[in-house]
């Protein structure tokens, strides 16, 4: 999947040259890691923060901020080991064990056991750990969009931590670890279409369904309190996504260049398509619309970035804008769930579509070993669908169980007065605008 071609160090052929830390690749990966961090803080925080009502903006910013802090600690404590480490026996394909807990035994001159195209010129292991840490942070943060404006901070915090440990880490292991059972199945996911977007998107849908609608929200959308924040956040997401996708090759090479190119093209195609749809059907292209379109395009190209060319990127960008537009403007309201900021509508739906279309548009001209339906490899679409289904079912069921446990113990939905007067005052003792 992501690390198509990973071979654990010990399995290396003795005749092949000894891997070493490449200064060029390391320099790029340090920058890429920082770019992915920027996606959560302040990118996603402002994108979501601007979309909510003014009484709840601090709650959103705080949720993103505390996840950046808490997941980092969880990641170095045992999260990285669970996701990317190895365990013995029957558990090996499913979870990583605790050998690397607190990064024990990992030195500053150790080379990363994970690589994609550059098997010799690698990056430090600790940079790989940090790069993956940023992914572990943003994934639970994406779910915030679905339960925004009505979840208690305590319930949110416990849910997100447990979700990171019990859902994100295992799924990352299945898909990205050399031992992972989904990785061995041969599905393609360059930068996290299934692990990040489908995973978070399905959790978002379950949370929105379980929590129920916000009080007083019936059909009429709540108006975003600060649209310039939304545009600022979307711009930072777009910018940070270059690190997310072009960094997922773990090297500064042509494959990274291709990921950068198709990421940018798909985002542009989706943003433009969304704006044109609105222009045509509502007479006015909106800023929230173009920003949403760009994010949908970025989501969809994520699994495909290392496998498709410009043509595929254009097709994926246009398709995801059309599908996500229909989801958030028509289907959501017909079905009647309150996915506050369309975390499912954009990340879930965009992620599923991107994962499937990766199986369609993968071309040998990018990575010679991987082809999709357009080059005759129809089987790949089936493998993509299977990987999506597995992750969706696991994420959905686990999210349901976690919700029930937290709801019955500490409680998860805020009282009516808190929802009406705003989470900022009751949950944080602050107000954003004074």
């Amino acid at each position, binding site marked *: 999947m992501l690390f198509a071609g990973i071979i654990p160090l010990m399995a290396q052929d003795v005749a092949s040259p000894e891997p070493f830390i490449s200064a060029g690749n390391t320099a790029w990966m340090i920058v890429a890691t920082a770019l992915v961090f920027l996606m959560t803080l302040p990118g996603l925080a402002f994108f979501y923060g601007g979309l909510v009502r003014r009484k709840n903006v601090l709650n959103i910013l705080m949720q993103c901020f505390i996840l950046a802090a808490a997941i980092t600690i969880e990641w170095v404590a045992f999260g990285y080991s669970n996701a990317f480490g190895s365990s013995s026996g029957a558990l090996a394909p499913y979870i990583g064990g605790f050998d690397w807990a607190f990064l024990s035994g990992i030195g500053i001159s150790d080379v990363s056991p994970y690589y994609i195209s550059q098997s010799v010129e690698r990056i430090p292991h600790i940079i790989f750990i940090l790069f993956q840490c940023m992914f572990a942070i943003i994934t639970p943060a994406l779910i915030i969009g679905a339960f925004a404006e009505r979840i208690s901070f305590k319930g949110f915090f416990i849910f997100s931590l447990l979700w990171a440990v019990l859902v994100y880490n295992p799924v990352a292991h299945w898909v990205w670890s050399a031992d992972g059972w989904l990785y061995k199945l041969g599905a393609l996911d360059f930068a996290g279409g299934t692990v990040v977007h489908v995973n978070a998107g399905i959790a978002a849908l379950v949370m929105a369904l379980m929590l129920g609608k916000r009080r007083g929200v019936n059909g009429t959308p709540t*108006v975003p309190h600060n649209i310039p924040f939304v545009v600022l956040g979307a711009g930072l997401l777009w910018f940070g996504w270059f690190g997310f996708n072009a960094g997922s090759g773990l090297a500064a090479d042509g494959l990274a260049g291709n990921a950068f190119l198709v990421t940018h093209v798909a985002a542009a195609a989706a943003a433009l398509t969304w704006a044109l749809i*609105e222009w045509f*059907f509502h007479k006015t292209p909106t800023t929230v*619309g173009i920003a949403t379109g760009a994010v949908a395009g970025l989501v969809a190209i994520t699994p495909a970035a290392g496998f498709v060319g410009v043509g595929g990127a254009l097709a994926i960008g246009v398709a995801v804008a059309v599908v996500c537009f229909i989801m*958030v*403007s028509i289907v959501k309201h017909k079905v009647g769930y309150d996915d506050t900021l369309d975390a499912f509508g954009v990340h879930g739906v965009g992620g599923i579509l991107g994962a499937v279309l990766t199986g369609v548009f993968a071309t040998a001209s990018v990575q010679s070993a991987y082809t999709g339906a357009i080059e005759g490899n129809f089987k790949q679409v089936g493998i993509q669908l299977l990987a999506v289904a597995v992750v969706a079912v696991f994420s959905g069921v686990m999210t349901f169980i976690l919700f029930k446990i937290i709801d019955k113990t500490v409680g998860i939905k805020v009282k009516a007065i808190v929802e009406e007067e705003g989470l900022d005052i009751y949950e944080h003792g602050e107000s954003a605008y004074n």
Partner: protein
Amino acid sequence: MKKIEAIIRKSKFDEVKGALKEIGIEFFSYWDVRGEGKSRQERVYRGRVFDTSVIERTMLSIIVREKNVNKTIDCLMDSARTGEIGDGKIFVSPIEKAYRIRTGEEGDQSLFIKGEEE
């Protein structure tokens, strides 16, 4: 002495302020208000078109002596008007008493500064 309250278009505020200054009305209070009415504005959010009934206007509260009442009203009628629906309203009501806190002056005298105006 009368209180003249006017609800006007926000876009007309600068014009109204200038016109009032020209006729010598230099002191008044104003604030932004929201109201209900028949006017509907279409908004779009992620492909959903919806109406807002919120009508945003500016409200002026001007306390004037009897001799200035008519010219103030004429001035407002003239400077706040566009001719389209939604230009606003003017309400006139009597003021019983008025005091200037600094000097203790009462009635009409509390409204203007001696020496600067007759």
